[in-house]
């Protein structure tokens, strides 16, 4: 099976004041295309740092980082931004929708970076909202939607440009159990029916159970990467 993500000897060091802090210590990781991986571990274990590297939001201090077929550690800022827009969909814990825009306008934002016509963008937005079950809420602003609905809009925004990889940072962290289950079910559908590779950071073991593999981290190292039956 082809690899969606390949990390070799990844080291990440932050400089805080005069101090250098190494948060990832020579990580190696492979994620197959179409896999749903849950990244777990205690706070400060380096989960979000790893997710940021995979998503091309940050550069490793050392190591090789191949994501969606591209060695992204070699890309410049502008090239990396372009790469992100084509290959990565993001789902945040607090949805991070633009409050002034309606749901459909929020979903349209990633498509502004494409060459699609206005009509085609509208069509794609409608399809994405349909997929997350919010076609009837297209004209509502985030403040008029529940937390679960806002996260669905956020997922629609993540998939509207049809990226190969979805990175989700605690996507159910701000939701009650019922809404969390719906979101996780939606992510599973995107993984199984639409072939999206998903990397999800979570503290919640129940959420992690929806993934096909759980990777545990501690103090900047991988401690376990067993596959599950989910």
């Amino acid at each position, binding site marked *: 099976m082809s690899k969606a993500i390949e990390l070799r000897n990844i080291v990440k060091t932050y400089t805080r004041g005069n101090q250098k802090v190494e948060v990832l210590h020579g990580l190696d990781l492979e994620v197959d295309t179409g896999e749903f991986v849950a990244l777990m571990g205690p706070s400060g274990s380096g989960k979000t740092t790893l997710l940021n590297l995979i998503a091309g*939001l940050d550069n490793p201090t050392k190591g090789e980082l191949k994501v969606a077929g591209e060695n992204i550690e070699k890309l410049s800022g502008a090239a990396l931004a372009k790469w*992100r827009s084509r290959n990565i969909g993001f789902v*945040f814990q607090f949805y*991070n929708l633009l*409050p*002034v825009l309606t749901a459909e306008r929020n979903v*349209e934002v*990633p498509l502004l*970076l494409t060459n699609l016509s206005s009509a085609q963008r509208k069509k794609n937005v409608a399809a994405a909202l349909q997929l997350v079950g919010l076609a009837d809420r297209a004209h509502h602003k985030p403040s008029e939607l529940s937390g679960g609905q806002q996260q669905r809009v956020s997922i629609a925004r993540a998939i509207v440009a049809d990226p190969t990889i979805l990175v989700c940072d605690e996507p159910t962290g701000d939701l009650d159990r019922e809404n969390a289950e719906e979101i996780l079910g939606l992510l599973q559908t995107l993984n199984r029916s639409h072939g999206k590779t998903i990397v999800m950071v979570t503290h919640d073991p129940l959420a992690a159970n929806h993934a096909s593999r759980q990777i545990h981290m501690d103090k900047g190292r991988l401690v376990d990467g067993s596959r599950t039956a989910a």
Partner: protein
Amino acid sequence: MKYFMLIWAGIWRKPVRTILTMLSIVVAFLLFGMLQGVNQGINSQLANNNGNRLWTISRMSQVQAIPIGHMSRIKTVAGVREVAHLSFFGGYFQDSRNSIGAFATNIDAFANVYPELRITPEMVQAMQTTRTGAVIGKPLAEKFKWKVGDQIPIGMPTMSNKAGSNTYMFDIVGIFDPTPEIANSPLGTGFWFNYDYFTEARAFGAGSVHQYITTITDARKAGEISSAIDKLFANSPDETRTQTEAASLQAQLKQLADINFIVNAIVGAVLFTLLFLTANTMMQSVRERIPELAVLRTLGFSSTSMLVLVLSESFLLCAFAAMLGLGLGAIGLRGLGTMIGITAIPTIVVVMGIGIAALLALASGLPPALRAQRLNIVDALAGR
């Protein structure tokens, strides 16, 4: 254009703040448009004045009368082409609130020295055959809905007639159509009647005028001819001061105030304050939206896009409000400017306004735009 929704969303994230900022810009550019409009309009009118025209008034003051006999002597000066005279009175129609600039003149010469008033030979002839005749400009005729043939009573509080009344009756014999540059000036809006009729009718002051207007053959000799005219009456009880029309108007304005300095000082202070206000608003707006801007960067917007987005917000806000302000200024000037003869904001002021709005947008938008451009996504998403 497809990014417009993001720019628009950024502007209206805090509607009250945006409206208040816009109002500040609107008021500033309203002031700018009206004050600079008046200033530039005056400068332009002065610049447009015919260099071949000299004004002669009493050396004592402009309101001091000088003898009508001066006219024949002025005509003897070499280089003088034609001499008209005028006497001005604050008149009114029916009610003292309907004030009118009432002028007695020798209409044949006057029509020649002010061709821009476009007083036709037929009107001159009508005035000469109707002693009580008067000609008026189109703006005044439209204001009071007067037409040729109307008999109009004009009150002149400072000049009673031999019958003991302050009201003089006139017959409108012509309505002239002045050029736009002069249409709203005191000349264009004046009520012009025969000096001969008036000087006979009035109770006192017969045989005197307030001013002579002389056209000369060569504008380059204006100084020389002015001196020659004033020399004629030197050491007499009625000494004169002769200047070019532009110099006379400037001197009159200087008696009121240095309008240029006052206008520039006010507008400068307003725009300087506005710069800080707008810059502060933009900084605050971007500071509040750091997480949202980080999301845009996450989705694939480049750092240059962020710079352009924030600068565009600033430009849109400033340009829209400035144009609105200038538009309101134009409307205001149309209403109020008739009193000073300037009813439109000159194009140069509109161009200056747009330029200042662009500079304001750049100066106030650049610091937050650079901040947005240099945004570190990871730190911004983490709220650091």
